[in-house]
């Protein structure tokens, strides 16, 4: 059973998360897909890493949930096939740009398919908008995606009080409110927030670097 789209655990996340050692244990996703040894695992990894981001992006483009699911399946198929066929070239753009192109094309194809076969699909007029808006929206989803993954990862190792502070902050509470609720000094809350910020930043740096190494 799955919940509707929303913040969820990034357990099983594709990012290896050990950049501090200067190594990655998994090798690049790309490398593994290309050598063809572990396609199913690669697919799963794509799914656990990018699924929610892509679903949210599709929904922001006006697709219904079920259609968004279909499109995301298509995107993964395109990614795996494209990576195999060396469509993706790191010297021509980053991995996330490639993902963007795949999802953009998948949505376009889906719109075309729907308008050919289904008369009068409601809400499609909202799908095709200005290209720049698409790009911005995707970028926003990308940022959100890294934040969500980093928060999930950081929460795994942080102490309970730090987690409480982080959650209260993300719920929109002021420092003062957090301090009162958790019975802490305001200064202490600030310090925890800074520590959490640094850890999130470090974690996101790892994730982005890893993504760029694809």
């Amino acid at each position, binding site marked *: 059973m799955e919940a509707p789209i929303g913040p969820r655990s990034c357990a099983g996340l594709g990012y290896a998360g050990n950049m501090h050692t200067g190594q990655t244990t998994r090798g690049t996703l790309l490398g593994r897909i290309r050598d063809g040894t572990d396609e199913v695992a690669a697919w799963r990894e794509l799914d656990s890493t990018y699924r929610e981001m892509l679903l949210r992006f599709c*929904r922001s483009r006006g697709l*219904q949930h*079920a259609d968004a699911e279909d499109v995301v399946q298509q995107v993964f198929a395109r990614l795996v096939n494209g990576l195999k066929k060396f469509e993706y070239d790191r010297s021509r753009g980053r991995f996330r740009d490639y993902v963007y192109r795949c999802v*953009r094309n998948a949505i376009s*194809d889906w719109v075309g398919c729907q308008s050919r076969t289904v008369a009068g699909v409601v809400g499609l007029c909202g799908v095709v908008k200005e290209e720049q808006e698409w790009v911005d929206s995707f970028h926003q989803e990308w940022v959100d995606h890294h*934040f969500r993954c980093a928060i999930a990862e950081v929460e795994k190792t942080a102490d309970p009080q730090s987690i409480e502070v982080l959650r209260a902050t993300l*719920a929109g509470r002021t420092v003062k409110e957090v301090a009162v609720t958790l019975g802490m000094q305001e200064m202490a809350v600030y310090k925890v927030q800074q520590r959490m910020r640094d850890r999130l930043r470090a974690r996101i740096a790892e994730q982005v670097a890893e993504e760029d*190494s694809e």
Partner: protein
Amino acid sequence: MSDPHPQPPPADQGRGPANDAILDERLTRDFGFDSDEWQARARRASRPGVPLGSMGQYELTLELGRGAQGVVYKAVQPGTGRVVALKRLGAGLPPAERDIEHMRREVRAATRLSHPNIVTVYATETIDGHAALVMEYVQGIAIDRWADEQRGKAEKSRAGTTPLLRCFLGVCDGVEHAHRRGVIHRDIKPSNVLVTADGTPKVLDFGIALLTDHLKAQTTATGFAGTPAYAAPEQVLGTRERDDTRCDVYALGAVLRRMVTGEELFGPGASMAQIVDVARSGTRIPASRSNPLLPRDLDWIILKAMAPEPDGRYQSVGALADDVRRFLEGRTIAAHPPTLRYQAGRFVARHTIACSLAGIAVAAVLTLSALSTMQAISLSKRGEELAGALQAERAATATAVVARVHAEEQQRVASAERDRQQAIAAYLLNVADGVAENSAGRLNVPVEDLGNWFEGAQGALDRVEDPVVRARLHLGLSEMRRASDDVKKARWHAQQALSLLPASGQERLRLRALIRLCANTNSQVRDGEAAIAFMREAGLSEEPIAVEAWRQLGTCYQRARRTDDALKALEDAASVATKLRLGKEVEAQIVSDEAVVLWRGGRVDEAMSAGERVLALLTPEESAGSEAARKAAIAMGEVSFAKGRYEDAERYFGSASAWSRASPGDGHIGTRNAMRWHARALHELGRYEEAAALYERLLQLVPPGHEAADVGVWWVRFRYGATLLGLGQTQEARRQLCMAVSKGLDRGYKPPSGELAQMVDRAERALQATNLRFTPELKKQLGDMDWLVDFVGGKLAAGAGQSPAEEPVEH
């Protein structure tokens, strides 16, 4: 519509490896880490997702699952507030109009299914161009997860597999219900079976596999949309044009395997190529390899359900469920080769307490050789008592003590011997009962295995003294002999049983023996009438066995060509069956007898309509394994054959043969009869190869050393010879024809019966038709049939003007 070169986001035009300065700048810019802006961005990222929205008229509340077939939501119908499960079937173009009608028909059939173990489909709709099913919402978990939990509990409570199997039987009931209504599932797997909190299994997605196959075929290269670990080999390989119910039997076997072992047949890394290889090679891995604690019988059940060839599987879900029930009751299962040792094991398992007592008794008997020692010990124990008595000069008491000790010892010995006999008898009666079941068509025992049973029961007869037990064993043996078509011995055993039974008491057994006696005679009306007279005298007229007695009398009359009397007897059988409400199988049996009587009495059209009544009474699934359906189909086939309508005949005989081969199996006399007729009809249609294959199988079925006793074998060889001539295989045809004649004469029918003379005559004409010449090579081939070579050769030579050999056959 794809745009091969959409503009990448401008923010991403910088690239490159993780250069610290660039990365730093990007993180600052994109994630707002240079100020408290990061908090706002992280907050945005953590917001709940967009609501699921609606689909058609339904408000989606939760995604329940997603797979190759599509997405399932929990949804609310706004007008009624009804909570439903809404399944939107997979992506792709809607199927073409010409394909869709077949699918619609099946989906419509599925929506009419109503059973506690099936998730009800309320409606099918098209929403935004996608097929969608509106179904009953069931709160439950997939049966594999449920089974894992149960196994965890069972380890603590030592409940074993029983709760799992009870739940599995519920699944079978649901699937069987659908099959009866013509709906095949085609994609049974754990995720399609939900188990509710009270342990009730509910099967999902009946009838939609066709639809999803179509959709999937558009998106996959193979067009195979099932779940490999649960799909039957013929589905994976696409070797059958149409799926039949047996692919569901396979899938149920795979589900049972998953439930009891906790392991998937194929690991997550298995490629399609590996799966296809396994399907092709028919490799089967016993479930006990994954769970060594699994009882062997369950292994057999799973292996049979998952047999690579559909013909090797249980032929219906009902048969699979019956075997699981038998297993739960500790009875012999059909899937297991019925060796004597196995039977004994099952018997002991069922009667643990009785057997342990018997075991103790037997052990006591085994030590009887040391009885004198025991007595000595016993006496010495009482010695003190004796000494005390003597000491007190109570001589009379002392004598009494000695007498009591002796009496006690004797009683102990007698009781131990009685227990021993009862234990042996009970075991063998269990064997005999098993065979009786076989003869009733409920056990699928190959005829070769009957040898073991004969041996066990015969051996037992030498050791058991109780006449009633001996009589029951004889009755079991009579059934065995009948099932393997040894009429004479069957009759002999029935006579023995009768002679052993006491004059009073045991009336039912006596009646059974009387019925068995006339079942094996050719035309003894008086035997049938004697059975009925006894039945009335013993007050058994209103019991189920009365139906058997009346049916038997009907058969006796029919053999004596007294058609009206036979029909009257069958009417009496029917009235008892109706009064006792014995069910439609019994009714079908009586009507099938009627069909045979009418056909033999020359009332052809009435026979056909009686046959049709039988087939109308039974569903196709019920016909498999039904003696009544087989008899009716054979009678209808014979009518068609006599009228020269060979195609109809072939169809009827083919059905009879297929049903009967499914159960009670090839070895049964009824099956062999059906196969003989089927082969004959095929021969008439010029389908010699198919006919030859059936004849070969029939000959294989004759147990070694049994041929001489079996008139049917000669006929098979004759027919086979004729078919081989049709195929142009004259050499083998001659061999079969010669063997037929040889076996006929070898049985000591001298002077031969009219039938034999006819056979010999036909064989000769056939041989002449092939221009048979007894060349030295052929003589060599025929080997031990020198006399025949001389005989037939002599006749042929006489025809050619040479000196004739002595004529041994009168025409």
